[in-house]
C-alpha cells in the first residue's frame, strides 16, 4: 500500500509546528529511563529522522503492540523542546495509521544545520514566524504601541541579519500590527502556509544572533500548555489551572536541617492534575497567594518524579517551585476548568481494592457515630469518628474520619443524620484499609463534600429517595461484635485440627466458643521473678536458694517471688475437645483469682476443699476464647501449641446477636 509521509514534517516540528498532524514512520523504538519507563521513537518523514519521546500515557500502545517498528503514525499532539541543546520531539497523542510498513525513503538524521525554516516550506516568502528582538529595549512589553517607531527605525538592520533573505521590506509593516506582547511577527496575513498564530510552541528557540550587541534571554511569556504535557525535558512552560486542594504548612527536621514545606494540587481544563510543592523561602512567597478554588497562571519550576507515597494524583511528575517561578492569580473565572475532579468508585468495587490505595467515593451517610478520642502510637491524642456510607451498588462501607474532620464535617453530618436527613457525602482521596473487612479512612489530603452539586450526587439522592433508602445493603466492613474482638475469626474446636491451623509461618489467631471441661490442678503456676526490666516484669522462672529466690536472668536474689499461672486445661465444644495453655492474665480470667491466692490456698493453707470448690466452679462454664495457635518443635516432635490469649465468660446476649447475624448472612448466600 503506497503511503506518503508528510513532507518536511520533522523540519516543521523543529520549527515550532504543533498543528499539522503529520504522518511519520516509526523507524525504531527504544525503552529508556531508569526510574520511569519511557519509550523513545526514531521517527521519519522519509527525508529526515529524529528522536521523539513518547509520553508515558502512550507506553501501553507500545506494550500492546499497537505501534511498532515500521508503523506509520499520525502525530496528533506533540511539541518540540530543547534539552541540552538537542531538540527532542515529545509525542503526547498519536494514532497508528498502518501498523506494519516497509521503511519509506532513505531518511537521514535531522540536524540543526539543515536548519529549520528554509527547508520546511521552501516555496513561501516567509517560511517561519520571524523572531524580533529590539536590542535596545529587551524586556517584554517594551515593544509597546506608544513606541512603535523604535522598532523600525532604530534597529532596522537587525531584521535582515537575523533571517537573511526571508524578510522583505514589503511586509515589514506587518510588525506594527502584530500582537505587541509577543515578539512574533504575524504570518496569517501573508498567505503563508504553516502555523496559525494562535497555536504556538511552548518555547521558541532563541535566534542565532550573528550581529553585535548583548545576547538576550528569551523573555517572551511561555505558552500555556496542558498539565498532561508537562515533562522535565521542557525548559519553559506555563500552565493555567485551578487549585483543588491546599496542604497545611508543615515544618520538618531532618539530617539536612530544619525547613518548611507546603503543597497544593492543580487541575486544568483538560483534566490534567499535578501537585506543586514549595520549600522554605518559596513557601513564604506563595503560601498566602494560593487559595483553593481559584485559577492561577504558573510558570517556571522544576519537574520531579512524583512521590507516590504522599502524592496520589494521576501524574508521574510533581512541580517544585523555585525562586524564579511565577504564580499569578487569574482574576476572571475560567469555567472551563472544573472545580474538582473525581473518579468515583462504587462501594462494591472497593471490596476488591488494594489496601492503602487512594480513591474517591460517593455515598449516602446512613449513620454517624460520636467522635471518640484515640491515643496515637506517638502518644498524641486525636479524634476518630466512624460513619457509614451506602450507594447504589447495594453495599455499604465504614468511613473513618480522623482529626479535624471529626469536628468540622463530622459534626455537621451528625447533626443532619440526627434529624433524620441522610446527606450525600463525596470523599476525594480516601484511603482503603483492609484491617477489618474494607474500610475507608481520611488522610491529610482527603476532602469531604457534603451534599455537593454535581450529577453523581443528584443521581444518588434520587435513588435514595425513591427506594434506595430501604434497599438492603451488605457492609463490606466487618461489623463489630459486642464482646468479641473486632477482627475475630470464628472456628470450632475440630476446625483447629481439620484446617491445620498453626502450621503456617505465622500463628493463627482464632476465636472459639467452648466450655472448660478439665483444669489440671497440680503445677498450675510457677514461681516468677518479680523484678522489673525496663517497664516490664522479668517473669522468668526463679529457683529457691535456701530461704531466698534467685533469678538467673537478673542475677539477683530476693525474699519473695511472684506466682504466675501456667494452666493446662481442656476446652470442648459440640465438635471436639482440645488441650490449651493459659498464662497469667488468661489464667486469672479462667479461675477468677490470682495465681498466688490459689497457690497459698493449696500449698500453704492446704485447704483442698476450698481449692476443689474453686476449680469445680469454673469447669463447665462457657467462654469465648481467643486462641493463638502455632506449631512448635519440642525435641524432634512438632506439636501444635494452643495458647489462650483471652477468656471471656460467654455473654449470651451478644453471642445470640452474633448467631442471628450469621443466620442472616447464610440466608443471603
Amino acid at each position: 500500500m503506497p503511503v506518503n509521509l508528510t513532507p518536511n514534517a520533522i523540519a516543521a516540528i523543529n520549527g515550532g509546528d504543533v498543528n499539522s498532524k503529520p504522518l511519520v514512520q516509526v523507524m525504531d523504538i527504544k525503552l529508556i529511563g531508569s526510574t520511569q519507563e519511557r519509550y523513545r521513537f526514531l521517527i521519519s518523514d522519509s527525508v529526515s529522522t529524529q528522536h521523539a519521546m513518547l509520553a508515558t500515557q502512550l507506553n501501553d500502545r507500545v506494550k500492546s503492540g499497537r505501534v511498532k517498528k515500521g508503523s506509520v503514525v499520525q502525530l496528533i499532539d506533540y511539541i518540540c523542546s530543547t534539552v541540552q541543546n538537542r531538540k527532542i520531539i515529545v509525542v503526547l497523542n498519536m494514532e497508528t495509521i498502518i501498523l506494519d510498513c516497509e521503511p519509506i525513503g532513505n531518511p537521514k538524521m535531522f540536524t540543526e544545520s539543515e536548519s529549520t525554516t528554509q527547508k520546511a516550506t521552501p516555496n513561501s516568502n516567509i517560511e517561519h514566524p520571524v523572531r524580533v528582538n529590539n536590542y535596545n529595549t529587551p524586556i517584554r512589553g517594551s515593544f509597546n504601541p506608544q513606541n512603535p517607531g523604535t522598532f523600525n527605525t532604530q534597529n532596522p538592520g537587525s531584521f535582515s541579519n537575523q533571517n537573511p533573505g526571508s524578510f522583505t521590506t514589503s511586509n515589514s509593516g506587518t510588525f506594527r500590527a502584530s500582537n505587541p506582547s509577543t515578539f512574533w511577527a504575524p504570518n496569517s496575513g501573508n498567505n503563508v502556509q504553516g502555523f496559525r498564530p494562535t497555536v504556538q510552541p511552548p518555547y521558541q528557540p532563541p535566534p542565532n544572533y550573528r550581529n553585535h550587541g548583548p545576547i538576550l534571554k528569551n523573555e517572551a511569556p511561555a505558552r500555556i500548555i496542558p498539565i498532561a504535557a508537562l515533562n522535565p525535558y521542557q525548559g519553559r512552560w506555563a500552565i493555567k489551572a485551578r487549585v483543588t486542594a491546599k496542604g497545611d504548612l508543615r515544618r520538618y527536621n531532618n539530617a539536612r536541617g530544619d525547613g518548611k514545606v507546603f503543597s497544593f494540587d492543580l487541575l486544568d481544563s483538560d483534566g490534567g492534575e499535578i501537585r506543586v510543592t514549595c520549600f522554605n523561602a518559596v513557601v513564604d512567597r506563595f503560601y498566602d497567594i494560593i487559595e483553593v478554588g481559584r485559577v492561577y497562571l504558573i510558570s517556571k519550576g522544576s519537574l520531579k518524579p512524583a512521590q507516590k507515597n504522599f502524592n496520589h494524583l494521576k501524574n508521574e511528575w510533581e512541580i517544585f517551585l523555585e525562586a524564579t517561578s511565577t504564580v499569578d492569580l487569574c482574576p476572571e473565572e475560567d469555567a472551563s476548568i472544573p472545580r474538582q475532579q473525581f473518579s468515583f468508585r462504587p462501594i462494591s468495587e472497593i471490596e476488591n481494592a488494594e489496601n492503602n490505595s487512594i480513591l474517591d467515593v460517593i455515598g449516602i451517610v446512613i449513620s454517624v457515630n460520636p467522635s471518640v478520642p484515640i491515643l496515637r502510637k506517638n502518644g498524641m491524642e486525636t479524634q476518630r469518628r466512624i460513619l457509614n456510607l451506602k450507594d447504589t451498588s447495594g453495599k455499604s462501607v465504614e468511613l473513618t474520619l480522623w482529626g479535624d474532620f471529626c469536628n468540622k464535617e463530622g459534626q455537621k453530618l451528625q447533626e443532619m443524620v440526627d434529624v433524620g436527613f441522610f446527606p450525600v457525602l463525596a470523599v476525594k482521596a480516601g484511603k482503603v484499609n483492609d484491617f477489618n473487612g474494607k474500610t475507608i479512612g481520611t488522610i491529610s489530603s482527603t476532602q469531604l463534600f457534603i451534599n455537593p452539586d454535581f450529577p453523581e450526587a443528584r443521581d444518588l439522592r434520587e435513588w435514595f429517595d425513591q427506594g434506595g433508602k430501604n434497599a438492603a445493603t451488605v457492609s463490606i466492613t466487618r461489623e463489630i461484635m459486642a464482646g468479641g474482638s473486632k477482627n475475630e475469626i470464628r472456628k470450632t474446636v475440630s476446625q483447629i485440627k481439620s484446617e491445620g491451623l498453626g502450621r503456617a509461618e505465622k500463628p493463627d489467631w482464632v476465636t472459639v466458643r467452648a466450655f472448660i471441661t478439665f483444669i489440671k490442678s497440680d503445677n498450675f503456676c510457677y514461681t516468677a521473678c518479680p523484678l522489673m526490666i525496663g517497664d516490664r516484669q522479668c517473669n522468668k522462672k526463679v529457683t529457691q536458694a535456701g530461704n531466698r529466690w534467685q533469678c538467673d536472668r537478673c542475677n539477683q536474689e530476693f525474699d519473695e517471688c511472684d506466682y504466675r499461672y501456667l494452666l493446662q486445661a481442656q476446652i470442648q465444644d459440640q465438635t471436639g475437645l482440645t488441650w490449651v495453655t493459659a498464662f497469667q492474665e488468661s489464667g486469672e480470667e479462667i479461675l477468677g483469682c490470682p495465681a498466688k491466692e490459689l497457690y497459698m490456698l493449696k500449698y500453704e493453707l492446704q485447704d483442698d476443699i476450698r481449692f476443689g470448690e474453686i476449680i469445680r466452679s469454673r469447669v463447665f462454664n462457657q467462654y469465648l476464647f481467643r486462641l493463638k495457635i502455632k506449631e512448635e518443635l519440642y525435641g524432634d516432635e512438632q506439636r501444635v501449641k494452643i495458647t489462650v490469649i483471652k477468656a471471656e465468660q460467654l455473654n449470651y446476649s451478644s453471642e445470640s446477636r452474633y448467631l442471628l447475624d450469621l443466620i442472616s448472612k447464610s440466608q443471603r448466600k
Partner: protein
Amino acid sequence: MDTSNPAVFVNGELLHMHVGRRVRAVIQVIQSDNVGVTGKSTDGLQVVVKGILPSFALTNFVEVIGISDGDRSIRAEMWNNFGNTFDTDNYNQLCKLANGEFKHLFI
C-alpha cells in the same frame, strides 16, 4: 418436654396469626393487677394477658405461655420469670425466624 402441644414463639405482631393456638411470648411487665397483666411485647406492642394469673411476684421480663386470644391478647396457662434484664431484640429476631423461613425447624 411436651411436644404434643407446642407453643409458637411470638411477638406482638405475630399473635393474630395464631389465634386459638398455643403461643409463647416474652413481655416486659408494665402493669399487673388481679384482672390481668399488661406488658410490652418484644416488638414494642402492648399486650394484655388474662387467664391464669401468676402466683408469684413477676420480674421485669416474663415468659407467658397460653392461647392467643386474637390481636394483642393472650389467655395465660403458665408464667416464667425471665429476670430484670433481657435482650428483647434477639428474642424478637428469634420470633421472626421461627415464623418465617425457618418455621420448619420449630415444632
